[in-house]
């Protein structure tokens, strides 16, 4: 984990409100593991002080990239920044996905919206190819299919309005594939919390392991403030753990979806 001022190499619109940001960060890039994130201080934001966490999409020798959606004050200002401008970054952060091993379980990756970006490095670094299931509301919410196809992964897209791929939720083709598949599989997921909760339930129903990248309101990103906690099992009891430090990726069996009374 390093804190550095990095230069924007590119910051271009992908589809609709999605942007691809490439940063020159030769010291950070080689350290990045799949599922980790970067905590970004958008320097021109003067009265919105906090850093914004972004999943890391791709990592090269001296650059890494982020695929983000313009959803608010921070990302709006970020989307107007140009190549050559600087950002302050703390990265790589968090506990990421377990990279599958050759000959082990077949990885099934499940992504909702820009959660797709967080799955790319995992697919790229996995010696074993699997299937990536991606869901979104509309066609424009289905991102980086090309990149997955280019590394030989099968992509199953679903949209809620049927404008691309199968019409419906991402869980439908996943369920069909789980019913069909004979060998051992493991699920890896990143997306909206209701989707993750559904994946957690499916993993339990089919008795397959699952790693979920959890999203909770983050503040410091490095484990000091205790803002981004989720309740997880700890022996017979439970405890709050930090999505920035113990997470964002958790074993689905450890996650408590409701706060114990």
């Amino acid at each position: 984990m390093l804190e550095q001022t990095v230069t924007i190499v590119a910051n271009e619109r992908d589809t609709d409100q999605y942007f691809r940001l490439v940063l020159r960060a030769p010291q950070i890039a080689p350290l990045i593991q799949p599922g980790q994130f970067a905590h970004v201080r958008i320097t021109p934001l003067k009265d919105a002080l906090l850093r914004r966490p972004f999943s890391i999409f791709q990592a090269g020798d001296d650059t890494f990239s982020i695929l983000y959606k313009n959803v608010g004050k921070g990302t709006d200002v970020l989307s107007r920044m140009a190549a050559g401008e600087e950002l302050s970054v703390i990265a790589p952060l968090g506990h990421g996905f377990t990279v599958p091993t050759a000959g082990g379980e077949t990885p099934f990756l499940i992504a909702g919206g820009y959660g797709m970006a967080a799955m790319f490095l995992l697919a790229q670094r996995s010696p074993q190819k699997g299937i990536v299931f991606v869901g979104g509301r509309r066609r424009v919410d289905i991102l980086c299919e090309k990149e997955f196809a280019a590394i030989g992964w099968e992509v199953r897209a679903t949209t809620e309005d049927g404008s691309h791929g199968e019409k419906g939720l991402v869980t439908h083709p996943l369920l069909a594939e789980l019913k069909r598949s004979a060998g051992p599989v493991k699920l890896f997921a990143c997306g909206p919390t209701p989707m993750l909760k559904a994946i957690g339930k499916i993993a339990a129903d089919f008795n397959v392991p699952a790693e979920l990248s959890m999203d909770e309101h983050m503040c410091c990103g490095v484990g000091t403030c205790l803002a981004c906690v989720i309740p997880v099992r700890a022996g017979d009891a439970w405890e709050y753990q930090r999505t920035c430090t113990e997470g964002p990726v958790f074993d689905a069996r450890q996650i408590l979806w409701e706060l114990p009374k």
Partner: protein
Amino acid sequence: MNLSVKLGQLVMQNPVTVASGTFGYGAEYARLIDLNQLGAVTVKGIRLNPVPGNPTPRTAEVTSGMLNAIGLQGPGVDGFIKKYWPFLSTLKVPTIINIWGTTVEEYAEVARRFDALGGVGALELNVSCPNIKEGGAQFGTDPKLLAQVVAACRQATTLPLITKMSPNVPNIAPLAKAAEDAGSDALAVTNSFPAMAIDIETRRPKLANITGGLTGPAIKPIAIKLVWEASKAVKIPIIGMGGIQTAADAIEFLMAGATAVAVGTANFYEPQTTLQVIAGLRDFMARKNIADVRELTGSFQPGK
């Protein structure tokens, strides 16, 4: 050039520490800054037993600040000593441990336990957290209760005691005086300000706790005034805090009457802030020909 200051028996190599709750237990930021450059490390509040903390969301960003309602999640005294003290005890700079309880007896017991631990720099009595149901702020707003807490801790330990004052009082002077008279070696002024924010799309509070504490640059001018008022009421030194982002902010607190300062919320977005403040303070002193940082304390000129 002298930057060192004394708060009771606590010696700091420079007047810059961190605000409790914004720096974890030290180790988290040790990967990003050299903690031995600080005046002291102040850790998150500890009570006797572990505390789960509040439901989420626990923080919300607001203009020039943030709200938090963490609820003093913590490992308890034993958990802290086991998990975090081995690292903190290797530091060359003192550790200030922020402590709290729900009764006077609990404060005293926690103080006794840390007294027995050995090697602690000072204890900061948290009588001003706005985010817990019992304990915390109730002790910080009633001079009689405050005096009881401070006196009980004074009995329990010879460690320097810093009383962290609530901003949520009509007049800070009688409370500051009560803490001083009961044996506090220093005051920390101030804590977060009770506040709230609403998501207008959902009509829901932005914090699960509904209300929280406002911190960051938004509170700085209010905190400056509280430091000034407290400093006029007592002779003991004050650690000033509230929205410090730069050396200029820190110097303002010193001039208002603080002997030391704490960087709080800024740690969350710029972990280098403390080091930048120390460097900037040196530059200011060099530029103004100030040989001793203590000359700055209370040096502002209220008259014409």
